[in-house]
Structure formats: C-alpha cells, structure tokens
C-alpha cells in the first residue's frame, strides 16, 4: 500500500474515532439517563436470549433498569469518590519520594 495513502486513511480513522468519542461524551453529558436506559436494553435482550430463566423473570426484569440506571452508576461514583484520582496519586508519590 502507498505509505501516503496509508497515513491519510489512518488520519481519517482517527478523526472518525475522535468525532464519535466526542459525540458519545456529549450524549452522555446531555442525556445520561437515556444512554443508561439504552445500555440496559442492549445488555438485557442478548442476556435474556442466552440466560433465559435467570434474566427473563419478572423480578430481575422489572428491577434491571433500577440496577443499570441507578445502582451501578451510584456505586461507580462512590468508588471514584473514595479512590484518589490519578493526578492526586502522582502528587502523593512525588511528595513521598522528595
């Protein structure tokens, strides 16, 4: 393959990925709840097809949106809040070494 064409194709791919990523971030920031419901649907249906009895029952099924839309995000936020950030860890490490 022509190296110039290869570089241009790579640039296009990266540009597409960056645009997609920024679109996803924007969607997440503007419609977090909608994105979480979509994730719930996308996860639940295939899981239901393969793990029928465990997933497609009226207790788990009805509570699944609660788990994906509220419990997991809350748990992740708590986890992140309790853990020091990467920058903070770096600062502590440099403080300890000096």
């Amino acid at each position, binding site marked *: 393959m022509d190296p110039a064409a290869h570089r241009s194709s790579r640039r296009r791919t990266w540009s597409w990925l960056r645009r997609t990523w920024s679109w996803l971030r924007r969607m997440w920031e503007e419609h977090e709840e909608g994105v979480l419901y979509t994730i*719930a649907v996308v996860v639940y249906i295939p899981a239901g097809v393969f793990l029928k*009895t465990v997933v*497609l029952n009226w207790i788990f099924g*009805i509570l699944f*949106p609660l788990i994906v839309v*509220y419990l997991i995000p809350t748990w992740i936020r708590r986890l992140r809040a309790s853990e020091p950030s990467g920058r903070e860890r770096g600062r502590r490490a440099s403080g300890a070494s000096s």
Partner: protein
Amino acid sequence: MSWATHELENYFIQKHSKVKASFLAIALGAFAPDLITKGFVYGFHIGDWGFGAENPIKFHRGWPGAGFTHSLLFGVVIAALILRFTGSRGWALGFLIGDWAHVVTDINDTAGTMLFFPFSTVQITTGMWKHAAYTGRYNDAAAYYSSPGGLWDTFWLGIVLVFARGTLTKRYFREVVVPADPRVWAWIHRRFNLPERALVAIYRGWLFYGGCRIVAWTLFARFRTDYSWDPSWGGPWYIERVDIYAGTFWEGVWSVTIGAVLTAIALVVCWKLLLRRWWQRGSDPPIVERHGFLAAEPART
C-alpha cells in the same frame, strides 16, 4: 396466556385511572392470577423432589384446579380483603382493575378463563393462539412468540408507546403516580434510600421488562428453536390444541349466560351488604376525588 401484555397494559390502565388507583396495585393485580400457579404449571424441582401439575392446562384454567384465580370474583375477593385490612381504596381498586385486565386478556388463548366462576365453570375463549404451557416454559415461549400471541404483545407495546407514552415521563410519575399512592412510594424512598430517578426506574421497569421480553423471546423462538412462525388465528399449527371444556357450544353459552347474571347479582349484593361499608370506611390520598357510586360520602337527599 398472554406474556408481556400483562406488564404493558398497566400503563394504559394507569393513563385512564390517573390518581384513582395505585399503579403498584394495578401491577400486582395483573400478576396475581399467575403468581402462585405458574410454577406448578411448568413444574419445578427442589433437590430430588419434583413439583408440578399432572394436567397443566386444567390445573391452570380449569376446575378442579387453580382456574378460579382467572375469574372476576377472585379479583373482587382479594380486592375486598385489601380494602378491609389496609383501608386503601386506591390499592383495592388498582388490584381489581389489574386482576380483571389479566383475566379478560387471557381469554384469547385456547384454554380460556372461567370468568364467571363459581357460577359457571365453562372457559370463555376467543382461541386466538394455542395455550402451550404443557410443553414446558421454553417451548411455551417459543410457541407463543411464533403465534398471534407475539403480535398481540407487540400490539400492546405499540399502544403504550403511542397512546400512553405520557405516562412514562418523570413529570407524570411525580404529579400522578406518586400522589395516587404516596404512602408506598414514600416508604420505598425512605426504606431503600432511593431518589426519584431510582423510583422512576422501578416504575418504568414493567415497560422495560415487557418490551425486552417480547424481543428476547422472539429472537429465541426464531433463531434458537426450529419453531416456524404461524400468525394465523389459532396458531401455531404444530401445537396440539387442548380444550378443557367438553360440552357443546350452546350448553356453554347457556352456562356462561347464567354465570354472568349470577356474578352480576353476587357483585351487587356484596356491594350493598359489605363492600360499600368497607369502601366508605376506607381512605384516599388528598388529591383523589371520586364521583358517582364510588364517591367518598353517599349523596344525601
């Protein structure tokens, strides 16, 4: 039996009942007829012990059996007990509407329901799709989603999304669903420390479950079994039809007519002798205004 319809029709009922009935009670009522019996219909094991009905269809919808759970008076009895012991009119009414919606919807399969039990033990059915519970849960699901039953569920999903989509908003939840049943939602909020976002997720859970199970079971039926799609009336053709009622058509019509009249009389008598008193003793949230014979105070002349 209907599968996802029992979850989806709750929102349609909610749209029409507004604050007059509790959504959670409607949902419980819609589950009630199958709540205890379904496990025995499909059969289950605990260790080496197997539990299950010898004749699943008769057990599910017939008499002798648990078919009485799919009758109008069963809903009335449980709703009356709710009214007597909780004093909540919204819960009693919600349970009754949800239960009746389930019972009426289930006349569409070939097993039918004994709507007017105990006055008539004839199953009323439109025979739209075959009741295939005797084939086990997975085969039942595959047969149902290969028959008009799958279309029936999809129809209800469409009805909710087109005509009752307003009931799915946070605003509706805040202004209608919670005020209609403030004690229970407040209890869930306090007991589990859940904010509004989580409570709305629970409220939308029935739609989520109903909609997703239509897709999941349809995919299962189409790609993981060899059941062919047969949306014709009374399908699928490859499932054997099992009728519980063995009499002639006109005997059935006569029995159902007598049953309907006696059920109506029983309801009026029960209301006059007992239920009206319990209803007047019961309470409503402040937002609820009732009119007609369900008005809080009897009209004085």
